[in-house]
């Protein structure tokens, strides 16, 4: 759309700027402030330079959390994106079943995150949970509160349960926007189902899938409540992702300096990776 130059448009975005600045810039300044100071209580602060940053970057604890976070995020992306696309492709395009599917599939998205965690906790408990009990009954030694692999399995399954629908909804929105004529032309051109997917459906879904990857990336990198309620970061520290670790340091141990430095590094990693994803996925555009 052609747009006119109008500097007064700034007045339209002023309310947004004021609110977001209040919420983003002030706290961020607080964080930056803490990240370069040392405190011994009594509200006394001393300049500490970059030692907190050096400490966080060289700390094995941070490395472990970051690696766990990366494994978690890339695992769920690798499962949820293809799975969401497959389900969207198999969904009906017309009729009453569309609404039924959409409503039921969207349901997990609207459940408070701690309830999701609690629900999966009681679903997976080996003694009274349907899933845990069934797995043990058919011969698996399943206990997610004790065994690391079981904890990770439950954690990943929970996230797939919770968020695949978002990918489905987005992919489906992309699919239904393809005019019938494309499918008709492809049939006349003798295209196979794979060719239809590769040359018609996938290109038309590219935009919504970019959104899906970005959203799932950001949100999974920020995940806190669900794993906290499900496993509390355990057993041991085996499911302690970045946010859980950060909250432990900041609110649990009240180590403001390291927590602030970690926050900033954390935020920068997300920005950087989001930018990389975005650039990679939009590379061939125009």
């Amino acid at each position: 759309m052609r747009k006119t130059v109008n500097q007064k448009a700034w007045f339209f975005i002023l309310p947004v700027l004021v609110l977001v600045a209040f919420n983003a810039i002030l706290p961020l300044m607080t964080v930056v402030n803490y990240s370069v100071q040392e405190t011994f209580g009594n509200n006394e602060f001393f300049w500490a330079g970059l030692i907190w940053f050096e400490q966080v970057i060289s700390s094995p604890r941070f490395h472990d959390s970051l690696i766990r976070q990366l494994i978690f995020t890339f695992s769920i992306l690798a499962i949820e994106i293809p799975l969401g696309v497959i389900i969207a492709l198999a969904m009906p395009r017309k009729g009453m079943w569309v609404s039924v599917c959409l409503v039921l599939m969207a349901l997990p998205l609207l459940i408070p995150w701690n309830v999701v965690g609690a629900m999966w906790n009681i679903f997976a408990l080996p003694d009274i949970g349907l899933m845990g009990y069934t797995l043990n009954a058919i011969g698996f030694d399943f206990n997610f509160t004790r065994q690391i692999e079981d904890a990770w399995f439950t954690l990943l399954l929970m996230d797939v349960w919770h968020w695949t629908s978002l990918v489905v909804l987005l992919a489906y929105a992309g699919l239904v926007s393809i005019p019938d004529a494309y499918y008709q032309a492809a049939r006349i051109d003798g295209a196979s189902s794979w060719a239809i997917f590769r040359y018609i459906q996938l290109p038309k879904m590219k935009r919504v899938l970019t959104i899906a990857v970005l959203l799932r990336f950001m949100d999974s990198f920020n995940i806190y409540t669900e794993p906290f309620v499900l496993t509390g970061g355990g057993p041991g520290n085996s499911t302690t992702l970045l946010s859980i670790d950060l909250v432990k340091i900041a609110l649990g141990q009240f180590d403001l300096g390291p927590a602030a430095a970690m926050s900033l590094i954390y935020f920068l990693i997300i920005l950087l990776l989001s930018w990389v994803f975005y650039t990679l996925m939009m590379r061939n555009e125009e």
Partner: protein
Amino acid sequence: MRTRWLIPTVYIIFLMLPIYWLLNMSFKTTNEILGGLTLWPQTFTLENYITIFSDPTWYMGYVNSLIYVSLNTVISVAVALPAAYAFSRYRFLGDKHVFFWLLTNRMAPAAVFALPFFQLYSAVGLFDTHLAVALAHTLFNIPLAVWILEGFMSGVPKELDETAYIDGHSFWSFFIRIFMPTIAAGIGVAMFFCFMFSWVELLLAKTLTSVEAKPIAATMTRTASTSGYELGLLAAAGVLTIVPGAFVIYFVRNYIAKGFALGRV
């Protein structure tokens, strides 16, 4: 393929299983839950629900959540509307940078902001108010609302604006009487997503409240730790948190898929 329907069906069954388990548990007595695994309540009880609806510390949790979620939805969409209009219609100094900066706030981990928010909202005297949570949630809801609305608004031809001015409408009269009804679907979708992300968030809501504005989600975690493991009660409370979401989805079912599709990256 004749068996194509199997894929969504299996997926939906997978989605429903944990919900069924929660529902099942909410109608059981604590004894039955701890006694062993039963696929259906042997002694069906509404006791858990009755407790929730008769105890103000429980039901006020829902009221509090609904209050700050509604407040947040109204604030986010109200300020996002003019901003989205500016981004969709005008070019101005720094427009692209501001748009991108807004979106980066959507990436901010809530955990990073928990402590600074606690200090900030305590400093301005808003701690433990509905408004505090509503404002805190605008951090990630405003960028999202601006993004969705901008997508919908860009789909409306500029000729509509021009015709309205020629017909003698002032800007606000055009915006409220003509433009907003035109993008009603977009406003619906934006409100849906604001509702959704405010309703499901717990970390900030819990950090910014203690008694007066405590959300239901926080009530659940605190009850679980203080009064022992009352699983039936917890399950019933969980079931009740699903209900508002289910209502909202039903009303916007034809638009949810479109919402993000029309938004611009």
